[in-house]
């Protein structure tokens, strides 16, 4: 027996903001090495689900296990778990007061305790990976949105994470810049990175995803192989959504 511990295991997750219940009992799993894409209309709770995985949002009830560790347990060292989960935001959230290189070395040094030389070396390697080696001295404000997002990905990768969470990583980008970011994400997937991607990029989901989850109204409506869900949706709400976006 070789029971695989899921990278992410969410069971019976509820999340309310005041009286507004955004997640109404979610079961959700990502296996190691899997790329799981989450789609759904805005307000469906998909970003909230993603943010519950590293507890940027506090779950109201239910279970969130990351590599078998219960992140809602007060005994859990949340910072340690988070340092193994790379997160990429819709708005990039680079540190504007720091150069690109410092953006990549800050957490390596304060969290991983790496020395300056090592941190810079890791940072340069990851900048190269996203094709921005020549931008290490630039400040975020001088980069395009697509470049900023690739730097943000490199920043997350510099922590050597076990998995990556992407929260609509291309939604704030001009259309012509989306391709570069998706390209980096495809490379990552090809290297076997475990990924949870909240996205509106159906092409990416179909091509790269191992599993597609459709959410609406705070519940998982339908899930399955991306090709099947996209071309042959079983549920009425999935059909309605896909007819609008495809």
């Amino acid at each position, binding site marked *: 027996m070789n029971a695989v511990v899921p990278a992410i295991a969410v069971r019976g997750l509820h999340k309310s903001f005041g009286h507004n219940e955004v997640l109404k009992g979610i079961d959700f799993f990502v296996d190691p090495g899997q790329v799981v894409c989450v789609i759904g209309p805005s307000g469906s709770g998909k970003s909230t689900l993603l943010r519950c995985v*590293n507890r*940027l949002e506090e779950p109201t009830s239910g279970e969130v296990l990351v590599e078998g560790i219960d992140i809602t347990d007060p005994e859990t060292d949340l*910072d*340690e*778990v*988070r*340092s*193994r*989960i790379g*997160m990429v*935001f819709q*708005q990039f*959230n*680079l*540190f*504007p*007061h720091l150069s690109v290189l410092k953006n990549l070395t*800050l*957490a390596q040094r*304060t*969290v991983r305790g790496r020395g300056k030389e090592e941190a810079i070396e890791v940072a340069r390697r990851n900048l190269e990976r996203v094709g921005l080696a020549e931008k290490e001295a630039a*400040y975020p*404000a001088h980069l395009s949105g697509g470049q900023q997002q690739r730097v*943000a990905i490199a*920043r*997350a990768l510099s*922590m050597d994470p076990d998995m990556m969470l992407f929260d609509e990583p291309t939604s704030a980008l001009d259309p012509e810049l989306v391709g570069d970011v998706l390209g980096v994400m495809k490379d990552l997937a090809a290297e076997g990175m475990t990924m949870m991607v909240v996205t509106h990029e159906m092409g990416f989901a179909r091509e790269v995803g191992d599993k597609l989850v459709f959410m609406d109204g705070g519940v998982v409506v339908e899930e399955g192989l991306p090709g099947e869900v996209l071309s042959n949706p079983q549920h009425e709400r999935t059909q309605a959504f896909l007819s609008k976006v495809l």
Partner: protein
Amino acid sequence: MKRTTRRRLVVWGVNLAVVAVVLGFLLAADWKTIHANFWAPGGVSGPDSNWGDLITIGAVNTVKYTAIAFAGGLAFALVLSLMRLSPIATLRWIATAYVEFFRGLPALIVIIFMGFGLPIAIQWTPPGGVVGAGLIALIMVAAAYMSETLRAGIQAVPKGQTEAARSLGMGGTSTTFRVVLPQAFRIVIPPLTNEFVLLIKDTALLSVIGSTFDGRELTTIARDFQTTGGSAQTVTSLVQAALLYLVITIPLTQLVAWQERRQRKATR
């Protein structure tokens, strides 16, 4: 009449009126008396002029006291602002009460209380004597104002910055000091400059509690020269002090404005 012509006429009219008022004032003024009272030769020239003490003791001490009060006030303000944003209600409550209390009092009263009241009340004179007590008062008052400025700056840093830092595994303390505060300080440089200039001028309030001969700041010395020296019985020394205040404040505000422009170019 064309619109631009009319606007040009209005501008000319205003300029003319201003010139007329100024000229009228200049002609009506009693220059001899003004000169004797505001710029008395005995105070402004010669080896025994007021300039010596005003610059080497007064201006130097004013700058020194401002620096101490600002540094102390800023450090204290940082603590207060973090307390105000703390998840612990007791700390929030204490900081709020402190800020409301000291913002509501005239700095002059706090200075007098610290300078004269404290040594009597608890038999303790702070280092630096009466001036030291006055500086503590300035720090306490300045901190109340600056903590509100800092709090606004901290709250102006987008929430995504904290989220990005925390999701990288950074703890609350390093997130605050490495990510949030550096950005908050950049936001509050203009209002903090304002506080600094206010503080330069507030050091004049220390003149009410007295000090040693060498510990006097600009206003104290100017007041002393109203009774002694070559310009006694005139306000010459105060005019001189006023000029020195401007010599300190104007380059400072220009310097900060220049630095601010430079920084904006780099990071924006």
